[in-house]
């Protein structure tokens, strides 16, 4: 990773932004923040001039249901004024149709309500016009929300509040109220405040109720046809203008986001200064693009040159000193296709710092291997792989890609265990064919139980040693003496761990005792003392003057308990891997239970129980095993070498998809 310092005239900044959007691989830093404290440099905090235009086009796209996608707008030969004119014209035409549509919807809705009302008074068989032309009373048809209907009892003492319900629905009560001409204003106001929705039947319905229903139904059908026509016109308008609108959106979005990107720069008078990061392999391409930009200089600095302390350099244009705050480079993970789905697991814990080992390959190998051991079944493994493939193909889930790998691993170990969907003897003919008397690993044999658990612990020991070695490598990279020599995950810890494990293994397996006094002193006691004194020792190596602890008693007590915890963590971390073997046994055990249940329901095994049992085991145990391994990775392995304090490499790009 290289730091690039871009300095230039402020009037060229748009060209710079355009160039680095085209380049697409520059991770910009908030330069104004980095230069806080340097005279003359300010952040760019004007309001984005394209904000309103973007709001307008976003609104148009949203109203017309056009998705925001990237469309090449190079051939959009329109000036700002023409774009505004075009947008306004479209908006007006669309709005006209939209208002016609809502007008028709309202009319249809009111016709529908009128038909409902008239159906309630169909039996009365009176002329509606006579009813509405009464001389002394007014008649209002409509509906009240059910809550408002209940409120009417508060008007029991008002003789002019007369509401007659005709139909009760869940949320509304349909009905009619009568009011004398003399006080209809007051009564109407009360009903309006109670959210009475009036249906103006008098304007639409004439003749008897039956005749009116017939005529309104006819009108209802005609209006429905009109509504369909308007909807089609809207669809056609959108279809016709969709591409042009998308182009305009992309053009405005580009200008808006470019302005937002300029905020990464700091301004000093007529000049700007921008700091960013690029990967080594992209430098040539970067130079080629930026050579074409006038009035701009680019200075590259290697990460090794950038000290983690405030640096000072001279600005050519001004004689002010530049004080840049310390900034760590972003991390760009690069892994092969097999490993890269596991980057998500690493990201869940934290991203590696720039000069820290990326644990993804270790996670990929250990996760795949451990999953296979713990969930070994040819049939179930292949099922998981197929499910994984489908999840990846149709949902693009990273977990799908991991399932493909772990499923295949499970299938391979399933072959060794001779297990296919829980049928433990299914592969026997195959083993006989290749000259084996029985399957390679008999999980359920009682004499194998201790071996399986022991091998699991052995695998754990190997992973813990690898984790310590990785921490030592990180120590070399960081030039950190404690990580390299003195810590519990440094050389001292490695010697101690290997010595104890070796002597225990030799004693238990071969009855060979290597615990001589010399061995104990050099391989166990001295590493323990070094770990105990790790802080003062590393300070001494770094030639710090305060290497002797101020409060010696406190130092002794604190480190004594810490040492105790360190030894305990070595033991528990190692024992923790027993679960790998235990789950291998549990898996076989659970399938035995499934088959026992299948045999209990009749003379021949019940196929539905076997299928259900397999599905249950795949889901439940697959999930548990997946989580348990992740736990082993995070607690037992990562905690020894991985800090995960890096920041993600995020090159500046124009995001055309999100609306804002």
């Amino acid at each position, binding site marked *: 990773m290289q730091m690039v310092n871009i300095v230039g005239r402020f009037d060229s900044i748009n060209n710079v932004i355009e160039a680095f959007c085209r380049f697409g691989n520059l991770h910009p830093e908030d330069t104004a923040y980095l230069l806080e404290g340097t005279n003359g440099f300010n952040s760019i905090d004007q309001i984005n001039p394209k904000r309103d235009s973007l709001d307008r086009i976003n609104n148009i796209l949203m109203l017309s249901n056009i998705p925001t996608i990237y469309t090449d707008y190079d051939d959009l030969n329109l000036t700002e004024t023409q774009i505004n004119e075009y947008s306004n014209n479209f908006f007006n035409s669309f709005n006209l149709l939209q208002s016609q549509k809502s007008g028709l919807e309202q009319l249809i809705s009111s016709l529908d309500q009128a038909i409902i009302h008239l159906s309630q008074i169909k039996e009365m068989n009176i002329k509606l016009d006579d009813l509405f032309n009464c001389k002394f009373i007014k008649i209002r048809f409509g509906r009240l*929300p059910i809550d408002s209907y209940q*409120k009417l009892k*508060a008007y029991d003492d008002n003789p002019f509040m007369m509401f007659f319900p005709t139909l009760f629905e869940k949320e509304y009560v349909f009905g009619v109220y009568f009011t004398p001409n003399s006080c209809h204003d007051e009564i109407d106001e009360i009903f309006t*405040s*109670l959210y009475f*929705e009036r249906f103006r039947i008098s304007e639409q319905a004439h003749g008897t109720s039956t005749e009116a229903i017939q005529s309104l139904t006819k009108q209802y059908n005609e209006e429905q046809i009109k509504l369909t026509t308007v909807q089609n016109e809207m669809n056609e308008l959108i279809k016709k203008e969709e591409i042009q609108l998308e182009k305009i959106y992309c053009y405005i979005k580009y200008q808006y986001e470019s302005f937002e990107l300029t905020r990464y720069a700091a301004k000093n008078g007529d000049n700007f200064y921008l700091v960013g990061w690029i990967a080594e392999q992209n430098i040539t391409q970067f130079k080629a693009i930026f050579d074409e930009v006038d009035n701009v200089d680019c200075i590259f600095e290697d990460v090794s040159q950038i000290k983690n302390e405030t640096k000072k350099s001279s600005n050519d244009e001004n004689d002010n000193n530049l004080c840049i705050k310390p900034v760590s480079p972003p991390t760009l993970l690069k892994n092969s296709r097999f490993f890269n789905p596991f980057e998500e697991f690493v990201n869940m814990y934290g991203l590696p710092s720039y000069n820290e080992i990326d644990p993804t390959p270790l996670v990929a190998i250990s996760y795949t291997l451990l999953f296979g051991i713990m969930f070994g079944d040819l049939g179930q493994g292949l099922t998981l792989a197929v499910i994984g493939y489908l999840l990846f193909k149709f949902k693009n889930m990273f977990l799908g890609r991991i399932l493909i790998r772990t499923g295949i691993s499970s299938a391979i170990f399933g072959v060794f265990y001779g297990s296919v969907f829980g049928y433990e003897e299914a592969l026997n003919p195959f083993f006989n064919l290749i000259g084996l008397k029985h399957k390679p690993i008999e999980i359920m044999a009682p004499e194998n139980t201790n071996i399986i658990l022991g091998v699991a612990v052995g695998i754990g020991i190997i992973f813990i040693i690898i984790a310590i070695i990785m921490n030592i490598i990180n120590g070399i990279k960081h030039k950190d003496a404690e990580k390299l020599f003195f810590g519990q995950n440094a050389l001292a810890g490695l010697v101690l761990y290997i010595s104890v494990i070796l002597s225990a293994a030799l004693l238990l397996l071969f009855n060979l005792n290597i615990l001589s006094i010399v061995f104990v002193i050099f391989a166990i006691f001295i590493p323990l003392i070094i770990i105990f004194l790790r802080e003062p020792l590393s300070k001494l190596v770094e030639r710090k003057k305060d290497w002797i602890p101020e409060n010696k008693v406190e130092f002794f007590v604190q480190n004594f308990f810490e040492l105790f915890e360190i030894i305990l963590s070595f033991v528990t971390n190692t024992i923790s891997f027993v679960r790998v073997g235990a789950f291998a046994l549990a898996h076989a055990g659970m399938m035995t239970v499934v088959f026992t249940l299948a045999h209990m329901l009749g003379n021949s095994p019940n196929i539905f129980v076997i299928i259900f049992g397999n599905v249950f085991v795949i889901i439940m145990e697959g999930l548990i095993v997946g989580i348990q391994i992740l736990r082993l990775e995070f607690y037992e392995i990562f905690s020894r070498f991985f800090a995960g304090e890096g920041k993600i490499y995020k090159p500046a790009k124009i995001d055309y998809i999100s609306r804002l």
Partner: protein
Amino acid sequence: LSGSNASTEVIIAKIHAMYGKRLTASNYRDLVNKQSVAEIAGYLKTNTWYAETLTDINENSIHRGQLEDILKKLLFLNYTKLLRYINGNQFEFYSYILKLNEIEQILICVRLLNAGKVGEYIFSLPIFFADNASFDLFKLAQVKNFTSLIDLLSDTDYYTILNKHIPNEDNLIDLTALEVSLRTYYFSCIFKSINKIYNGIDKKDLTNSFETEIDFANLINIIRLKTNFDISIDEIRLSVLPFRNKLSKGQLEQIIKTNTADEALNLIKQTYYGKIFNNFSFEYLEQYSQQYRYDYYKYSFRFSQSQPAKVVAFLNLSQIELKNIISIIEGIRYKIPSSEINKLLVGVE
């Protein structure tokens, strides 16, 4: 599981399920871009969990107030749903929502009495709450003056409080003083029930939750009064609720005594709540207060070990969501640009 543990698990699962249906940032973004109340109702009806109550409404003819009433009703119904899972002995505490609603109704009625519009109470009367109130809301709608209001409440605890606030000859009730008395009574009841029913982490988290709410309400109230009203220090002192959590008596008194809102703000910045007021804006005072409540209750909802504290947090978060929707409805009704409406929203994520 023991009976009470089982009920705890059920209620926690229930509130998490209900919280899971909350409006998302994309829902809010769509809502603020709507052009009318009808469109908002239509959107809520088709795209959000509010559909369950809005199914039968006609969005084309719905009135703004009607939509707001329906949403308020839904909030209350959610509360009553939760009550089904509450053990009997805890009801005394959980009835705080009922008290809050009762006080709200009394204050609405008093405001209308002061404005001479007594008849209008019926329009805002929440039918959904009528059966749960300890007095007859329909009779509240028929109240003609303060005396008849006191008579109506004679069988309730509010009687003694209202009796202390009988208006002078001008017949205007001192609304601020009455509000402070009622809220003091409300919080006293809450703390009394917490002390009676709970202990350990439940008592600690619940007390902290309500006391923090009071602290923050007092601080915001002081700033509001100093910014918007020409009001004496004594009057401000009387408007402060007599409870404290992370503020000392001296600190509060000093803040009250300041001459301007800026001076008060500077003193507040030196208190426990200082950091929160670092980016304070006088313009969006209400939103600022809501934002703090949102952050506090969201944290409590996620991390509190106490079941009742989680329920309180959930009820408050639901109320904040309702306020957001009401802000959008009113913003669109009064043609406020969407960028301005966005500033009124809290907890959009």
